[in-house]
C-alpha cells in the first residue's frame, strides 16, 4: 500500500510540522505532541483538551481554535496519546477556571486520560472528564469495553467549546458535554479497510462484493458483513440504527461523515439519502454537516451521527467557531 510519507515512524511528527507551517493561529509543540490555541490560557475561560490516536484527522487538531478546543494531543496512529501529553496540555490551557478532558471511549484513551488527570491534579489543575460513547454498533455494553466514541465527538467539542467561549464554568461546560453525548448516536459503514503506516497494508480484508456494517474508526472490522448495498440502502440501515436507539422527539443536528477514502461527490449523494430516510421517519433536521471530519485514514465508507437538539444546543451550534476544519460566524 503506497503512502505519501517518509517513514512510518515519523508520520505523526511530520504532520505536526505541517500543521505548524499551515496554521500560524496554533502553537504546535512537535516534540511533546501538543497543539494549543494561540493566546491560551484565556482569562477566566474553561480549557478544553481532547486527543486520541492519529489517523482521524481533522479530529482533534483541526478543531483547536476559538469556540472549540484549546488543545489537542495526537497519539501515534490509532494509539491513544500518553498521559504526559494531556497533563502538559492541561497546564498550558488552564486559566484557573479548570480544564475539561474530552475522551473517546476506548480502553487506551480512558486509561491514559485518567493517568493524565491524576498528574494534572497533582499540579493543581482542576480537571473534569467526559467520555464520549455514541456508537450504537456496539450492542452489549456489559460484555464489551462499552460503546465507542466516534462522530459525536465533533458535536461534544463544538457545543461544549461554545459554552466555554461564552464563559460558562467548568461544571456547566462538562454538563453540556455530557448532555450532548447522551443525546447523540452514530453508526458507521466501511466499503474498504484502511491501511496503517505501521502495518503498510489493509488492517483486514473486505472483498469486492461486500461491506462492513457497524465499523469503528480504527480500521477494526464491524459487527456484520453484508453483500454490497446501494447508497440508499446504507442510509436506511444507518438511520434505522441511530433512530431506533435514540428515538428523537425533536429536530436533530446531523453529521454525514466520510471515513476518508470516499469522494465528497459520493458523500453528498449519501447525505441526500440520509435526509430522505430521516424524513420518511418524520424526523426533522435542524442542521446538516457533510464532510470528512472523523476519519479512519483512507477507509472508504461513511458514518451517520444525530444529536437531538434543544434551543440551547442550537444556539451553541450556531455560535462562532474558528478552527482549521470547522469555521463559521467569525
Amino acid at each position, binding site marked *: 500500500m503506497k503512502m505519501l510519507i517518509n517513514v512510518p515512524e515519523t508520520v505523526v511528527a511530520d504532520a505536526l510540522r505541517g500543521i505548524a507551517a499551515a496554521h500560524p493561529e496554533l502553537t504546535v509543540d512537535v516534540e511533546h505532541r501538543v497543539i494549543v490555541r494561540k493566546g491560551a490560557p484565556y482569562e477566566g475561560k474553561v480549557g478544553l483538551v481532547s486527543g486520541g*490516536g492519529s489517523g482521524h484527522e481533522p479530529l482533534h487538531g483541526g478543531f483547536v481554535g476559538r469556540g472549540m478546543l484549546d488543545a489537542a494531543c495526537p497519539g501515534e496512529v490509532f494509539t491513544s496519546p*500518553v498521559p504526559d501529553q494531556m497533563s502538559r496540555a492541561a497546564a498550558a490551557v488552564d486559566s484557573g477556571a479548570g480544564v475539561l478532558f474530552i475522551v473517546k471511549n476506548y480502553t487506551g484513551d480512558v486509561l491514559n486520560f485518567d*493517568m493524565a488527570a491524576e498528574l494534572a491534579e497533582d499540579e493543581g489543575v482542576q480537571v473534569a472528564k467526559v467520555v464520549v460513547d455514541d456508537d450504537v454498533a456496539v450492542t452489549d455494553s456489559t460484555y*464489551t469495553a462499552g460503546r465507542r466514541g466516534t462522530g459525536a465527538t465533533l458535536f461534544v467539542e463544538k457545543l461544549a467549546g461554545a459554552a466555554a467561549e461564552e464563559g460558562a464554568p467548568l461544571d456547566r461546560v462538562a454538563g453540556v458535554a455530557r448532555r450532548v453525548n447522551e443525546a447523540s448516536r452514530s453508526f458507521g459503514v466501511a466499503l474498504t479497510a484502511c491501511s496503517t503506516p505501521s*502495518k503498510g497494508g489493509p488492517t483486514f480484508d473486505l472483498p469486492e462484493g461486500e461491506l462492513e456494517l457497524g465499523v*469503528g474508526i480504527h480500521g477494526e472490522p464491524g459487527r456484520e458483513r453484508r453483500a454490497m448495498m446501494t447508497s440508499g440502502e446504507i442510509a436506511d440501515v444507518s438511520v434505522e440504527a441511530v433512530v431506533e436507539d435514540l428515538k428523537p422527539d425533536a429536530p436533530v443536528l446531523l453529521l454525514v461523515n466520510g471515513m476518508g477514502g470516499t469522494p465528497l461527490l459520493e458523500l453528498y449523494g449519501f447525505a441526500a439519502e440520509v435526509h430522505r430516510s430521516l424524513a420518511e421517519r418524520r424526523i426533522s433536521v435542524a442542521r446538516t454537516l457533510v464532510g470528512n471530519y472523523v476519519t479512519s485514514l483512507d477507509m472508504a465508507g461513511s458514518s451517520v451521527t444525530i444529536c437531538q437538539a434543544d434551543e440551547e444546543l442550537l444556539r451553541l451550534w450556531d455560535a462562532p467557531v474558528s478552527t482549521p476544519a470547522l469555521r463559521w460566524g467569525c
Partner: protein
Amino acid sequence: MNALPQEGPAIDGAFLRRWLDAATQAVDREADHLTELDSPIGDADHGANMRRGFLAARTAVEQEPPDTPGAVLVAVGRQLISTVGGASGPLYGTLLRRAGKELGDEPVVTAARLRDALRAGVDGVAQLGGAAPGDKTMLDALLPALDALTGALDAGGSTAQALAAAATAADEGAEATTPLRARKGRASYLGERSVGHRDPGATSAALLVTALADTAREASA
C-alpha cells in the same frame, strides 16, 4: 537420576537489566507478528506500541542504570506509561511500577519475593483494566504464569526452573486465548467475530515472561 534442585542466580539490578535487554530484543523481533495479531481483532498497532516502549525503556535504563531490581522495574514501567499509549502502555506500565515498588530498594531478591511483587503488579492490571480471566486479554497469559511460578517454587524448583515453568504456562495461556470471545479492549467490539484469533497482548505478555526465564537460564548456566 534427576538433577537436584539447585539455587538459581542472584536476582539483582543487573539481572533485571539483562531481562530488559532480552525482553526488548524479543519485542523488537516479534513486533510485526504482534501487529499482525492486532489486525483482525484490533487496530494493528500492538507490535509498534511495544517496540516503541521497550526501546525507550532500554535507552533510559542504559543511560542511568538503576541498581536495585525494584528501581529497574519502576523505571521501565514509567517509560512504558510515557511512551506507549494505547491500552497496553498503562497496563504494562502499572504492572511493572507496582511490582517494582513492591520490591522497594532491596539490592537482591529471592524468586519468591519477585513472584509476590509480580502478583501485586498483575493485580494492578486487573484493577485498572477491570478484566477477568477468560476475557481474552494479557491477563490470560499473566495469571497462569504466576500460578505455575508459585507451583514450581513450592515444589522446590530452582528460580530458572520455576521461571521456565512460568514461561511455558504463559505461552499456553496465550495460545488458549484463540477460542475465547473478547470481553475487554478493542477486540470486544467484534463480539463473536473475535473468536478464533490469538490475543496480541497475551502473546506479548508471554514474550516478557519468556525473557525472564531465558535470563535466569543463561545466568545459571
